[in-house]
């Protein structure tokens, strides 16, 4: 175990070194690039024994990782934004093929207009691609998720690819003190990858085939069921992780002072820290507020969320995302999860941070004020004034 001063990208690369993937195929894109740079340095200096493959596109990055996974070995790739969208076809392919690849995605805005800064529209647009989706809050959690993601993805009952999302720049490029576990500890945590879902000379397979209407639906149902089976496996992974490394995680979502909260803000990613600070300051003024940070968008924390917010008077969703012509995707998912759960508190959507625009201290205070006073709209755009938004 060693304390290091690392950015989110660097911490993630450290986690991947500990996970010992056999094949790494990645294509550079800002703000993910540091991860692949670090990994190639680790391969060069011999501290990571992996095949580092310089692919010609993100589509090839994931296609190559799928080939490696189909050959029965552990594979890693990383991307961001346009790159994630460029490989979108392969996302569905990897999940349908049940290849437990781990991919880091640096959350970044999507063109047009071009923009390299952080929002979460890239990964949230791929919620239906069949990947487990986790959102890290800080560099430590990034490193820890790099390790835990393989445990969960490769678990026999899950066998589903895993996307770990880090907010572009805010997390990928920000330095923090990070505890880097020792390789022996990591080995104790993560078993070697073993699977029957592989090409095998002694027991030849035909893979990634077509399936007609009679069986296709069954394959898809099983894919869904496996993703749901990840929920107890996430718990199992976190328990084992805590035993070995001493750090505790809280499953699909993270709660902060929600037990007695009248007003709860639900968000994901690195903004949660600021939200908690504000919750504390508002509590000093006697307003009982809490924060829920969604850690996993897939599988979605339907049950845990309803339980966390059941006593609240009003709920706000803060997200760096929009589904044009509708509302924020996180909001849609939350509203759907709360249906039929006997929750009468109104839910308001606050969209902000698109293209990396800052969400300020004051913006978050204003969210709490609006939901407390009942003056919020169903969907609100932070920083766009009333009258402008027509």
């Amino acid at each position, binding site marked *: 175990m060693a304390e290091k001063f690392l950015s989110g990208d660097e911490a993630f690369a450290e986690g991947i070194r500990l996970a010992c993937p*056999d*094949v790494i*195929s990645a294509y550079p894109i800002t703000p993910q690039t540091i991860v692949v740079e670090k990994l190639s340095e680790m391969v060069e200096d011999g501290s990571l024994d992996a*095949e580092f*493959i*310089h*692919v*010609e*596109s993100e*589509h*090839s*990055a994931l*296609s*190559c*990782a*799928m*080939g*490696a*996974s*189909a*050959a*029965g*070995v552990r*594979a890693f790739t990383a991307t961001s934004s346009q790159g994630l969208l460029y490989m979108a*076809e*392969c996302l569905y*392919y990897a999940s349908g093929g049940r290849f437990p690849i781990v991919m880091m995605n640096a959350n970044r805005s999507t063109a047009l207009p071009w923009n390299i800064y952080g929002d979460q529209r890239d990964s949230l647009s791929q919620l239906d691609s069949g990947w487990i989706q986790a959102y890290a809050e800080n560099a430590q959690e990034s490193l820890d998720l790099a390790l835990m993601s393989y445990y969960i993805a490769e678990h026999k009952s899950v066998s589903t690819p895993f996307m770990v999302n880090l907010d572009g720049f805010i997390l990928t490029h920000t330095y923090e003190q990070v505890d880097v576990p020792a390789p022996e500890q990591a080995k104790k945590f993560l078993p070697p990858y073993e699977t029957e879902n592989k*090409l*095998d*000379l002694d027991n*030849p*397979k*035909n*893979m*990634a*085939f*077509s*399936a*007609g209407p009679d*069986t296709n639906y069954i394959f898809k149902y099983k894919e869904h069921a496996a993703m749901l089976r990840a929920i107890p496996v996430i718990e199992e992974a976190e328990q084992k992780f805590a035993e070995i490394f001493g750090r505790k995680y809280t499953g699909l979502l993270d709660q902060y002072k929600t037990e007695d909260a009248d007003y709860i803000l639900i968000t994901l990613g690195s903004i949660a820290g600021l939200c908690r600070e504000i919750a504390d300051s508002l509590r000093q003024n006697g307003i009982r507020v809490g924060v829920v940070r969604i850690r996993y968008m897939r599988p979605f924390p339907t049950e845990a969320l309803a339980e966390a917010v059941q006593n609240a008077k009003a709920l706000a969703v803060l997200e760096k995302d929009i589904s044009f012509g509708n509302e924020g995707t996180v909001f849609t998912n939350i509203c759907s999860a709360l249906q039929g759960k006997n929750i009468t508190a109104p839910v308001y959507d606050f969209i902000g941070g698109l293209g990396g625009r800052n969400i300020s201290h004051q913006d978050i205070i204003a969210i709490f004020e609006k939901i407390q006073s009942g003056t919020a709209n169903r969907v609100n755009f932070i920083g766009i004034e009333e009258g402008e938004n027509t």
Partner: protein
Amino acid sequence: MSVSAKTLDQNEYFYGHKACAGCGGSLAVRNALKVLGKNAVAVLPAGCMSAVGFNFPQLCFANNAIISTFAGTASMLTGIEAGFRRRGIKDFTAVGFAGDGGTADIGIQALSGAIDRNDNIIYICYDNEAYMNTGIQKSGLTPFGAKTTTTPAGQNIHGNIRPKKNMFEIVAAHDIPYAATATVGYINDFLNKIEKASKIQGTKYIHVIAPCPTGWGIPVSDTIDAAREIVDCGLWYLAEYENHEFKISRDPKNFTSVEEYLRKQARFKHLTDEDIKIITESRDKKWEFIRSHWN
């Protein structure tokens, strides 16, 4: 040692598939696998051969085989080759079978990347000169003048207005360890090129003409005839690229008639004498170049 019918692996690795009767592509896949044997690990992108060979639970490959994304034949081969190596497996051949569209259009980027990395794979392009699986649309390897469903032959435009992309030389321009052209019509030449490729380290590319009776508009029994005539009349050539040099495998002293070759096929039925003259002239020009520059 050269491969022949007698020395060829008697096993059938591609069997029971639903390709059209007389399919040239399936002949190429079948025979290539017979050369490479049971340890061939085949990657097939979306296209005829994957569509006809992998409909669960009708799975027509006796060896390990997997469908890749349309654009991802070469990149998936790369991953498989690396993965097998990581497992410590040595005695295997990663081989891809992609059609003309899968190779020269949507898959060219990944193919170029694999050659650039010199991944130890064999990439076979079975060229039936159009997107046959979707119903005969023009690809980058559709020849000049061919009628397809997206290059209709009318009064104004006589089918495809562009010549075939030169994949063999595009691949060779990467300075690939081995590239070759072939036809299912001269199967021994094809078999021996596969055999040769299997012994070479690095990326190997074999481009095999594989007539599609449906798309070319010929009787199903005439696949082999057409696959021979295209070489005999000089519109296709059998060659190799090795040790940085081009080498012609067969240099016909006299060409058979281009017109005769074209007129037998419904896709060229509309061509005027002038069109045929253009095609013949371009053949002559190509051969002039080949004979003066290649060994």
